[in-house]
């Protein structure tokens, strides 16, 4: 049975589809790498920027590497390059 996950889109990533998008994911979850592919496929306007190598994934308030896993219920977000000050 598939489940869904909301992925928050931060900064300029929200320009195309708003501040979050929903994905169907399997019960086993998916890796960050698979998340990027799934988002790019379902929301094609995000594909170029996700392919640029500068977007980081954040799961449950921790920035995670490409092989980290994401499951239903996790708070997932995509971060473009940050800039404070």
């Amino acid at each position, binding site marked *: 049975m598939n489940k869904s996950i909301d992925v*928050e889109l*931060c*900064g*300029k990533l929200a320009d195309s589809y708003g501040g979050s998008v929903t994905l169907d994911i399997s019960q086993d979850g998916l890796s960050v790498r698979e998340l990027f592919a799934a988002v790019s496929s379902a929301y094609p306007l995000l594909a170029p920027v996700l392919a640029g190598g500068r977007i980081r994934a*954040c799961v449950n*308030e*921790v*920035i995670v590497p490409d092989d980290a896993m994401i499951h239903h219920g996790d*708070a997932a*977000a995509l*971060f*473009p*390059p*940050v*800039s*404070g*000050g």
Partner: protein
Amino acid sequence: MNTHVEVKQTAFDPSACLAEFVGRIGDEGAVVSFTGRARGHAKDGALIEALVLESYRGVTLASMRQIAADAHAKFPITASHVIHRTGRIAPEEAIVFVATASPHRRAAFEAADYLMDRLKTEAVFWKREEHASGSTWIEPTDADRSDAMRWSNSLS
């Protein structure tokens, strides 16, 4: 570690921050402050109506705390103060306030400089300038990145 790190949703007064900071330190001889303020005009002269800063849950505050901890590890400072706005910021309002105290003038200057370089490039915020013709996302400039690189060859 005597540091105060805070994300503010509303406008704040940098001079009140400095008063608060000086009020909680001892007899350190050197206090440096930096205030970053929203500009009213872009580089091309266009009027900027507001700067809008977005943060993300606890990650933003955690990133600021890490940067403050690194400054305390790297420089002989005795206290620091790091305040950062989010939300919609009008021109001339403060975006960020940083203060450092040390018995040593050079340490206080360098730590404030370091805090700002790190905040510019690593604090978890996204910002855009709003102007009449739309809005523009602002990312760290090459100068910001090379400023931040100054410290990396001696990072602990």
